[in-house]
């Protein structure tokens, strides 16, 4: 069974990239990789448990046997990568999009780390027990694989179709992402979606992100983003809610209450209406 999580749609930027991920997983299925891993594990497990009986040295040998299973799994990953590039090309997509997925992941990991003040985890893959090759190596291998294929003028990335098909889902995917408490990564993803212009929905999302982090300067910035969103006629009504809550927290009570009243006027059946009504200074 192949499961696609909604977070993937925020991270792949066109049909070619999404197709590459699906193709990679399909190769695992087609080449019966999980069955082979099972056989390999069974073959080595007997030896490993036998050796583990002989003190520390035996234990080290056993760990060696087990890490070999993971080495085997890393090789399968490389196989799936290589075959998926060919599969993608046959479907008419640009194979040069494949390494970009990993470059994007690495850039996102960097953005997350910068905002958290930690070291980027882009090269973390689990060491001895890693099941996936390090991503830098992977980008290089995929780039080389894509370069082997003669360039064709008919290759497509399917970006326009991808954006059109997913437009209706962005708000809920971004909402999920904002709640992950990953400021840097989320801002990186929103910025990418906004590269063709800040729509009211994206400004609202940016407001939600900044308000959730909630530092005094974030709340000011959030109020600005919500304001930019709210002035547009197609803005989500929740922009008024966010604007009101941010202004109240920065100490602008009249401005905050006015914005919350606007929210309630436009969404009289809001699930939090009695609380918002109280914060807006009115009676229910």
């Amino acid at each position: 069974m192949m499961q696609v999580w909604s977070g993937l749609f925020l991270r792949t930027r066109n049909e070619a990239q999404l197709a590459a991920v699906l193709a990679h997983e399909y190769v695992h299925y087609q080449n019966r990789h999980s069955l082979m891993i099972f056989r390999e594990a069974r073959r080595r497990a007997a030896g490993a448990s036998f050796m583990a009986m002989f003190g520390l040295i035996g234990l080290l040998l056993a760990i060696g046997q087990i890490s070999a299973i993971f080495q085997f799994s890393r090789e399968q990953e490389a196989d799936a990568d290589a075959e998926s590039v060919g599969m993608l090309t046959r479907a008419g997509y640009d194979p040069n999009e494949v390494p970009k997925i990993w470059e994007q992941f690495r850039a996102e990991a960097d953005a997350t780390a910068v905002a958290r003040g930690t070291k980027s985890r882009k090269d973390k893959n689990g060491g001895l027990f890693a099941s996936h090759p390090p991503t830098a190596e992977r980008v290089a291998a995929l780039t080389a694989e894509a370069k082997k294929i003669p360039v064709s003028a008919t290759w497509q990335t399917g970006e326009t179709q991808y954006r059109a098909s997913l437009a209706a889902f962005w708000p809920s995917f971004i909402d999920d992402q904002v709640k992950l408490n990953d400021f840097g990564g989320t801002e990186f993803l929103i910025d990418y979606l906004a590269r063709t212009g800040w729509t009211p929905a994206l400004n609202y999302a940016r407001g939600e992100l900044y308000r959730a982090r909630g530092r005094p300067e974030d709340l000011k910035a959030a109020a600005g983003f919500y304001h930019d969103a709210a002035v547009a006629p197609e803005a989500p009504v929740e922009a008024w809610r966010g604007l009101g809550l941010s202004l109240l927290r920065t100490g602008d009570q009249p401005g905050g209450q006015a914005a919350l009243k606007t929210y309630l006027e436009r969404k009289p059946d809001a699930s939090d209406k009695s609380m918002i009504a109280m914060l807006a200074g009115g009676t229910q």
Partner: protein
Amino acid sequence: MTRIWKLAAIGAALGLAATPAVAGFKLVPKGTPIAVAKSTLTVTPSVDWNRLGARPGRNAESWTLDGLTLDDLTFYSGIDNDATLFRDARKKTAPLPRFNSTMLAPDIAQLFESSYRVSIGTSLMSIDGVEPATFAGKPGFHFTYTFVIQGEEVRRKGEATGAVIGGKLYLITFEAPVIHYFDATRDAAKNIVDSARI
């Protein structure tokens, strides 16, 4: 698949037999006022409860009637500015959001939702309504929520009542599976919330 192998491999390599963590429970007798989470928050249970020895966080404590997965009453008592609701177990890879004294009721509901989403790895969680309420005699808030833990199919429902008092967050949550347990235990939990004093 790969994670299971990884765990199995580590377990086998270390030659460890799986021993479940021993969860110690203490009886909380009915009718006696008791201070919770090593704080000044005091409640009086109307039925006997079981207090879990391992606390979910420095300022938190959990009680249950039938076991935590079936009904879970958790007290968050005196969460400071810039503190997390419960233990920041995966601080490096998945840090929890932090409470801020300036937060308004809707912000606290969002903080709670975000903390849950990060800690149980689910995107199936929603806050279903936020309203004003009285908590320990102070103006506070009440909200309800539903969620499904990643990899489970059990739908759970919960409600939270709390207030920010002196810049610190006080919150009591009750959650249980939608099927049978939520309705069966809700009154006992509500009695505790109503009896809260600081």
